[in-house]
């Protein structure tokens, strides 16, 4: 039986904003930018949540619900610094640590009881240390796997500690709403509710055979989670799985030329990151969102590349084929995935490719030395 901690920093961005400006304490604070703009809520304080606000809510809607809230653009660099500082503290105790996001950490304390004593008291000590040294509140879930630990950390926020006794996972989960399970989104929630599944215990009443037949691999995974099973081992170094950039237009865009121009710019940035990481990518994805929020994602697999030209040509083609409606465009994005490490040998005998490699090396050098915008491709 393993002992996994999930530590989640409570309203992290807001907590950092309150360190920067203590007068924000006790007030409804929303991080996410201009309340009249088109962004979404990145984080909000518990005082703002009382108005019905939550992460990912469109900021305009948030403003309607909470017009007296304090809307901030946020200080991302500062969030990263505090996140590192938290990780440094955790690293001094945890033998294995996985950072799942800027404000979430999994730690494996299996076999550490003799060193740290009661896991509940130890979690409390960790929580206090982070609060005292960094003024950041956090919640901790302790469970026999990652899923249970994560659900645990979420159920007593803020500054909560939840210890799920090994063997009691299924009972612990049974009365919770189905959407508590990580991975159950809006669509799945509606689907489950329509069929009469409201709490996690409803899921476990049926066999894995049913869930497998109805929803395939996803269904079996859902059934496993509902029964309190989950991943028991941490990923120590999370590999980057994709690189992408997207942009929301200030006003819905009707000019194709303008859309392609932005796509070209986004592609340039994606390819630069790709080369900086020393990767070649073989899958190209585009994202297109119309003004009515219909969102399309299209992808294509090609020979591995890190060349702006190839990626742009493919992305443009995908976008042209996807863009069939005569409706304004709200957002476009481009991404690459399925990475392989750069291998110079393969291109030694292809003159043009060798030339382009040299060209990219020179561009990469200039951008590293000065800035990204020092040199750009023309379309």
């Amino acid at each position, binding site marked *: 039986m393993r002992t996994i901690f999930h530590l989640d920093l409570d309203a992290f961005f807001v907590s950092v904003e309150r360190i*920067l400006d203590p007068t924000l304490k006790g007030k409804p604070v929303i991080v996410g930018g201009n309340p009249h703009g088109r962004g979404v809520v990145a984080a909000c304080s518990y005082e703002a949540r009382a108005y019905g606000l939550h992460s990912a809510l469109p900021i305009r809607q948030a403003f309607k619900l909470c017009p007296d809230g304090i809307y901030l653009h946020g200080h991302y660099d500062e969030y990263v*610094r*505090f996140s590192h500082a938290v990780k440094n503290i955790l690293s001094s105790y945890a033998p294995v640590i996985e950072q799942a996001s800027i404000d979430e950490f999994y730690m494996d304390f299996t076999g550490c009881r003799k060193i740290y004593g009661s896991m509940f008291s130890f979690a409390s000590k960790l929580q206090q240390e982070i609060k005292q040294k960094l003024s950041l509140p956090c919640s901790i879930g302790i469970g026999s796997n990652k899923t249970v630990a994560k659900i645990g950390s979420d159920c007593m926020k803020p500054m909560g500690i939840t210890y799920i006794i090994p063997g009691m996972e299924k009972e612990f989960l049974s009365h919770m709403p189905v959407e508590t399970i990580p991975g159950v989104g809006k669509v799945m929630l509606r689907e489950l509710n329509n069929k009469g599944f409201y709490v996690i215990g409803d899921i476990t009443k049926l066999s894995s055979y049913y869930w497998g037949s109805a929803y395939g691999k996803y269904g079996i995974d859902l059934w496993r989670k509902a029964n309190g099973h989950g991943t028991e081992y941490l990923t120590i170094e999370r590999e980057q799985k994709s690189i992408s950039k997207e942009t929301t237009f200030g006003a819905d865009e009707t000019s194709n030329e303008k859309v392609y121009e932005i796509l070209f710019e986004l592609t340039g940035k994606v390819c630069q990151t790709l080369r900086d990481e020393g990767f070649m990518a073989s899958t190209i994805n585009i994202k297109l969102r119309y003004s009515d929020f219909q969102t399309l994602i299209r992808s294509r697999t090609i020979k591995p590349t890190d060349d702006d030209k190839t990626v742009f040509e493919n992305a443009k083609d995908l976008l042209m084929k996807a863009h069939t409606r005569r409706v304004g465009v709200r957002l476009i994005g481009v991404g690459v995935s399925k990475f392989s490490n750069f291998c110079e040998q393969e291109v030694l005998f292809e003159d043009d490719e060798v030339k382009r490699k040299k060209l990219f090396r020179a561009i990469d050098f200039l951008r590293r030395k000065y800035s990204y915008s020092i040199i750009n491709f023309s379309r």
Partner: protein
Amino acid sequence: MPKYYIGTAGWSYKDWVPAFYPKSQSGNFNWLRFYANYFNCIEVNSSYYTYISPKTVKGWIEKVSDSDDFLFTMKLHQDFTHKKKFDEQKIRSVNYNLDMLSKAERLGGLLIQFPYSFSFNDASMDYIRRLKDIFENFSCFVEVRHSSWDKKEVYDFFKRSNITFCTIDQPQIGKAIQFEPIITNNAAYIRFHGRNTEAWTNSIKNFGKKQTYEEQSGRYKYLYTPGELVEIEQKIKTIQEKVEEIYVIMNNHPLGEAVANAFELIHLLEEKEKVDMPATIVKAFPRLEEIALDYFDPKLKLN
């Protein structure tokens, strides 16, 4: 835990009124005495520009008489470090003041700060050795700003010569040495110049031109953010078991920002939940209210 000496580079700045020194001051109000109420260390910077009269130094010693563990560190005159033109008389003058502070048990040591242009080579090493020989009776803290000094050979030389290799935090331009504490003897001397990259770049461009005080000091205008301070704290704590004394000097002096950051570092490094500080600085930097001891917000009304 080592003994921390946390303070600022200089104390005589008009623009610290009213952010640190109060606006209305009585006739016998003295800035150094006020400063020493709150800090246990000061780096004397005026000694870089002038040869200070022993009478002045004697006055300083008297002014900090109420602060038991207060220390001065003296910055060596530019004739030694920048112009490299000095004679016996100048050496005597520096030595005299250092001696006086040392006998009064008020001397931390001598800061020998070289310019960015002073890069690593045999001649530079010889020059440092020569200065150390001249001031052999005192603790020497040597600050070099060029990254060419960042090598084991240099650290070994500093260790052999019992010289402290200063750790500095400065804008990362060109081959500027990075903030990375290096231990070469039983003391660490850490200086913070701010991270105002833009003003620092401009000041390099205008080097040698006549500038106003604001233009000159503009490059030090920088308030470290709470996140940066936490990063700094965690880095300094990695060396705290290896030394006996750690000097932390804030040189981001414009408008009292150095003072505010020094109080924050006392809170973080000395692990004091609350730090004694005057109401003036809390008013100028409201985020200090969280760590200020006995702070009373004058805006609050008592019923």
